[in-house]
């Protein structure tokens, strides 16, 4: 540790800390443009000048590392003049068009000039002219004249993301930030440069000229489009959300978002948004609908008791909303059939759940099934950041039915058959700790064969399982037996850390669980079977869309047909509208206050920046109205708090699971095409007009180049897929990452109803080839 004095205050910091960061820790503001802790020092803008005693010149706080006994002054005549000079320089070629700049009022150049800058300009010469409002992509605009050439954007894309889509062109005062030949930037992380840009040079196209800081509501919120749960700021104006920005949280995250989350906010104002109640398929006044529903509820409860009603929680609801539904169901209706909508069967017990801090500290990470780039994009960035940290090397391996390696994140992948992940992991675990009782129990049914997998790879994996001090597994929940392997692994590795990050949804499933719902897939299946078998008379879907999501569509159809009353609350009309007796419009994220629990089991608070549109209501208004119709009191328990003091913003810890379930080696298919599903944020079915083109491009199945060749498909085509259960026509494109014999279909896409088929081997035939330009 190094001791130094900044503006008379003493502080102790780690060796290698920059003066800028040490000052920040003391709450002393040193203005910076080019410096960003995540990107490291650059020293280009010269804004952060400070005076260090015994140094002949002013020093840049962002590039000067602390030294023992150093005495730093961040103000004083010399520093003030230096700052003033730099600001004046930055302004001479700046267009000074703050009144028409989207960044006006939120701009570092404005703020610093106000605080430290010269009172008036002395520059009389003509300014250099550059591009204004030029496109970086359809989503991002650049005003090169406002750019201060801090390079944050260029460096972020190049060094941090590894997708160098922006570049510095030219030299000296003619230097500009641009893309190659004006080609649009494609990276799903490009939008972050808007937040990174300290001035009004990089702008969100959808927000362009939309609002001024004084007529917006900018609230802290959380992105709900995937289980990472990135922290955001949402901007509401005139009842609409018009912008989402990343929100850094000190010591926790840098505020990165993927463009799906940043620009996909308009689902709440999408034309297909449900804003009116529907009764038997027709729009109906809310009051009438409520009366009708009340009557049905009364009838069922009176005739058969609450247990004849089941509630399926899903969608984008808060933990508090789920808890209100839970209380309504248990106390007013009297049912315990409370389950969570699931699209994959896997489950992670709380006792195994890890955090992003675990990831940063991990010396090995194993991706099971999931490609975070597609399923949890910002997790991909976290992995990259972890991998780039040279001081602490990271082993990154994958076990999945496809190659998970990317140029931005090399992953040594054991490519399995569909459904073989658990067995391959078990084989490695057998080699690593075969004698451990937990492992023995896991293997007692003969699993751990790893047929067809290169034994050296299995050994490599087993070494990681044995030797990694801190191991994190990232898992997509597709192959359910993996849960048991992970439980055995954690036990066998007692003493070393073993943590799991689940990438499956719904994004707040752990919050629903906290609120009292059973999040296990089997519980949901049981409810559906009971409904099919006539044991349930009313099914209430709270935000859930089972026909779209549940892996066995037949079962859902049978259940829907059999129940007497089928009710849904949601932001969109669920698939199979004809089955529903009533559908009522609910509030969306950004419209209610509450918490979401992310893949770390971390609670994060979101505040609304707009009200629900039309007749859409927050959950509690329906519940109180229905309770009233039932003649029962229901007061929303505003006191209920998902937080537990001891665990801070994490859900309470639980012990490691003790009982280990034995798994069986899978029957592997011989030849044929294996059907493989995956969660992908760009395909996940939540609509957005802003992102329409990109979503459409992502909502497509994929095959390997070899299979495409065999089918005579060059880039894109349509195929006919047949399994025992049925037939499906799917648009497909070629994906270099796929091994021959695999057909990858994204989950949750209405147009790709993969749940019409049984998982396993399918027959594939080409229907037509689509020519792309």
């Amino acid at each position, binding site marked *: 540790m190094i001791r130094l004095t900044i503006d008379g205050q003493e502080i102790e910091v780690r060796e290698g800390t920059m003066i800028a960061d040490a000052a920040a820790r003391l709450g002393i503001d040193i203005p910076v443009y080019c410096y960003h802790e995540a990107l490291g020092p650059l020293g280009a803008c010269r804004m952060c000048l400070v005076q260090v005693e015994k140094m002949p010149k002013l020093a840049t706080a962002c590039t000067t590392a602390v030294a023992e006994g150093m005495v730093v002054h961040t103000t004083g005549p010399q520093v003030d003049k230096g700052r003033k000079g730099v600001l004046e320089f930055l302004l001479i070629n700046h267009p000074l068009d703050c009144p028409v700049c989207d960044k006006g009022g939120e701009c570092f150049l404005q703020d610093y000039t106000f605080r430290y800058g010269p009172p008036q300009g002395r520059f009389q010469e003509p300014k250099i002219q550059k591009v204004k409002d030029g496109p970086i992509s359809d989503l991002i605009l650049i005003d090169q004249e406002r750019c201060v050439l801090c390079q944050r954007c260029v460096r972020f894309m190049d060094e941090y993301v590894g997708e*160098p889509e*922006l*570049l*510095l*062109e030219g*030299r000296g005062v003619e230097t500009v930030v641009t*893309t*190659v*030949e004006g080609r649009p930037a494609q990276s799903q992380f490009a939008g972050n440069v808007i937040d990174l840009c300290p001035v009004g040079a990089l702008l969100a196209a959808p927000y362009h000229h939309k609002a001024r800081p004084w007529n917006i509501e900018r609230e802290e919120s959380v992105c709900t489009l995937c289980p990472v749960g990135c922290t955001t700021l949402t901007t509401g104006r005139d009842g609409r959300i018009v912008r989402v920005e990343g929100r850094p949280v000190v010591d926790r995250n840098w505020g990165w978002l993927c463009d799906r989350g940043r620009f996909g906010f308009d689902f709440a104002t999408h034309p297909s948004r449900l804003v009116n109640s529907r009764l038997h398929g027709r729009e109906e006044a809310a009051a009438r609908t409520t009366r009708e529903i009340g009557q049905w509820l009364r009838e069922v409860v009176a005739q058969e008791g609450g247990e004849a009603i089941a509630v399926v929680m899903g969608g984008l609801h808060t933990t508090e909303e789920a808890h209100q539904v839970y209380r309504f169901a248990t106390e007013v209706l009297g049912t315990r059939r409370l389950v969570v909508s699931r699209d994959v069967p896997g489950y992670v017990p709380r006792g195994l759940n890890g955090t992003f801090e675990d990831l940063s500290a991990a010396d090995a990470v194993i991706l099971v099934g999931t490609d975070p780039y597609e399923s949890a994009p910002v997790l991909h960035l976290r992995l990259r950041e972890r991998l780039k940290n040279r001081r602490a090397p990271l082993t990154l391996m994958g076990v999945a039915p496809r190659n998970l390696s990317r140029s931005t994140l090399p992953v040594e992948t054991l490519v399995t058959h569909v459904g073989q992940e658990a067995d391959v992991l078990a084989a490695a675990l057998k080699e690593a700790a075969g004698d451990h009782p937990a492992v023995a129990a896991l293997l007692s049914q003969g699993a751990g064969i790893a047929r067809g997998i290169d034994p050296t790879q299995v050994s490599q994996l087993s070494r990681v399982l044995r030797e990694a001090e801190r191991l994190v597994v990232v898992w997509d929940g597709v192959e359910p037996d993996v849960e048991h392997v992970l439980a055995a692994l954690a036990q066998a590795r007692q003493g070393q850390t073993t943590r799991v990050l689940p990438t499956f949804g719904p994004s707040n499933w752990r919050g629903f669980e906290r609120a009292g719902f059973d999040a296990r897939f089997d519980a949901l299946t049981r409810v559906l079977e009971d409904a099919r078998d006539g044991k349930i008379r009313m099914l209430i879907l709270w935000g859930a869309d089972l026909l779209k999501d549940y892996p066995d569509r037949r079962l859902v159809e049978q259940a829907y047909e059999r129940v007497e009353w089928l009710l849904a609350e949601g932001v969109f009309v669920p698939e199979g509208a004809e089955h529903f007796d009533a559908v009522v419009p609910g509030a969306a994220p950004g419209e209610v206050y509450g918490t979401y629990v992310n893949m770390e089991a971390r609670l994060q608070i979101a505040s609304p920046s707009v009200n629900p549109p039309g007749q859409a209501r927050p959950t509690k208004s329906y519940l109180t109205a229905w309770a009233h119709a039932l003649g029962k009191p229901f007061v929303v328990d505003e006191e209920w708090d998902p937080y537990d003091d001891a665990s801070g913003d994490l859900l309470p810890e639980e012990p490691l699971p003790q009982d280990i379930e034995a798994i069986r080696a899978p029957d592997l298919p011989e030849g044929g095409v294996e059907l493989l599903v995956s969660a992908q944020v760009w395909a996940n079915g939540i609509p957005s007009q802003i992102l329409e083109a990109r979503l459409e491009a992502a909502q497509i199945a994929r095959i390997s180049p070899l299979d495409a060749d065999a089918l005579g498909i060059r880039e894109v085509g349509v195929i006919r897929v047949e399994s025992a259960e049925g037939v499906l026509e799917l648009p497909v494109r070629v994906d270099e990452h796929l091994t021959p014999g695999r057909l990858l279909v994204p989950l949750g896409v209405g147009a790709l109803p993969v749940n019409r088929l049984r998982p396993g081997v399918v027959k594939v035939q080409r229907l037509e080839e689509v020519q792309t330009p």
Partner: protein
Amino acid sequence: MKPEWKEWAQEAKKQFPRANSALLPLLHRIQRAEGWLSPETLTEVAELLDLSPQYVDSVASFYSLFFKQPVGKRVIHVCVGLSCMLAGSDELMHALEERLKISQGQTTPDGEYTLLEAECLAACDLAPVAQVNLRYRGPIPPEEADRLLTEEVSS
């Protein structure tokens, strides 16, 4: 892409112990053959060296000897450094502009000449000095400007 470029890329990579150093030599070589570096060329160079097109564009645009616009058969760099200025380089440049009917920075419509300013060419003893296709010519007093347009140029 010209077929020989692949070979040149291989040679450039082998010329230095680490392949990173191959970019400038390859750009030099291709420019020498093509006269300038078109956007397509830069993209192809990126491909040849396994670099991103952004990277190649950014690097090429930094250096004043890489031409991202087409240039004439004779590229005339007139040194406008201080020592040459003292010896009349402004007048030399002016004479050439009048003679070629273009301003510095431009290329004659027939594609014969490109007239460019050069910063000090490290030949102040020859002031006022110029380079024609990077071959030194000097001293060239303004009244002898024509010599730059007619004298033999070696490649």
